[in-house]
């Protein structure tokens, strides 16, 4: 229970960002903890406990969405031919955490999940591609597009 108390909030946030529902996030975190306890022997270094638990929660959350058939967009994902420049700056936008969070949440799942995993959970494009079964270039493109949509939202909110 000590491990649970120590990591529950961090993992709850991770799961919530993916499943977007408090109750589902709670269930997913609990299932992930049980899964982790059952496989604790596979953890090679105790220092990696936090990241290891986080990976399990991310997997569980994505599995949850798969079960709920909320990852249907994965089949529809295709490579965009537009510019994939990643270095768009937000110099012209005043960034506030609450607004960024809200804007990310408003994105469609196909952008939101990739944005969350890359920006907040620190996954690489390659890792996201492996998790979602997409091409790395598709993930990269979708990320760039998501970022643009996010920027638009933030600019609009400033304008309002």
């Amino acid at each position: 229970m000590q491990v649970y108390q120590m990591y529950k909030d961090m993992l709850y946030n991770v799961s919530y960002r993916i499943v977007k529902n408090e109750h589902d996030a709670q269930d997913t975190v609990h299932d992930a903890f049980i899964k982790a306890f059952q496989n604790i022997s596979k953890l090679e270094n105790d220092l990696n406990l936090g990241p290891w638990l986080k990976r399990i929660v991310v997997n569980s959350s994505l599995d949850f969405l798969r079960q709920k058939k909320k990852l249907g967009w994965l089949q529809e994902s295709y490579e965009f031919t537009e510019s994939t420049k990643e270095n768009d700056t937000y110099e012209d936008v005043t960034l506030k955490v609450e607004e960024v969070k809200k804007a990310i949440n408003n994105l469609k799942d196909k952008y939101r999940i990739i944005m969350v995993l890359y920006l907040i959970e620190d996954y690489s494009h390659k890792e996201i591609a492996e998790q979602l079964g997409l091409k790395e270039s598709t993930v990269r493109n979708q990320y760039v597009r998501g970022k643009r949509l996010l920027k638009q939202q933030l600019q609009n909110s400033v304008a309002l």
Partner: protein
Amino acid sequence: MSLETFVKENQNAFDDKSMPKAASLDFESKLKKELHQDTSKVRRLQIIRYFSVAASIALLVTFGYWYQNRQEHIEKRDNLVLALDESDTNSSRLEAIYEIEDQFANEKEDEKILNAFFKILKADSDANSKVAVIDALLKFPDNAIVRSQLIDALGNETEPLVQLKLIKSVATLREQRAKAPLKKIIEDEESLPLVKGNASALLAMLNQ
């Protein structure tokens, strides 16, 4: 500032949600349930393992017991057959025959015992032993070798008491092959009238 840098610098601010307090209790009960299930599974496996070991031991002990009994049985038979072979007096031979009959009364015919009996039938043994052997052999009326041996003995036997016993035995078996030895007895001038009479009666019966 890039979006990535902004998020990195404010990483902690994105983790602003807390798991509801009641969730801990939920989790605790869920965990207990899972652990209990696991313990039950382990216990069930242990019980199955104990039973398997116990069953294997019981099987080994039973097999060991059966094997030992079988060995003792074979040893006893060999000793009796040897005693039958080596008996130098009529009474000891008769005793051995009765002993074999008692010991192996309810068993399937044993080749070694049958051969020892056939040997007595053919040999120049005393009449009592031969009569006892015929009685013992009649316990296997369906054995083709036993039937043939009794018919052969009927053709070769000259001792009236044994001849009479063989005629009665063949009558019980209703063996058509007995006709030739019966005719031989009837035609033999040295056969006793009583033997001839019994042989004629049996021949008539077989001819019917």
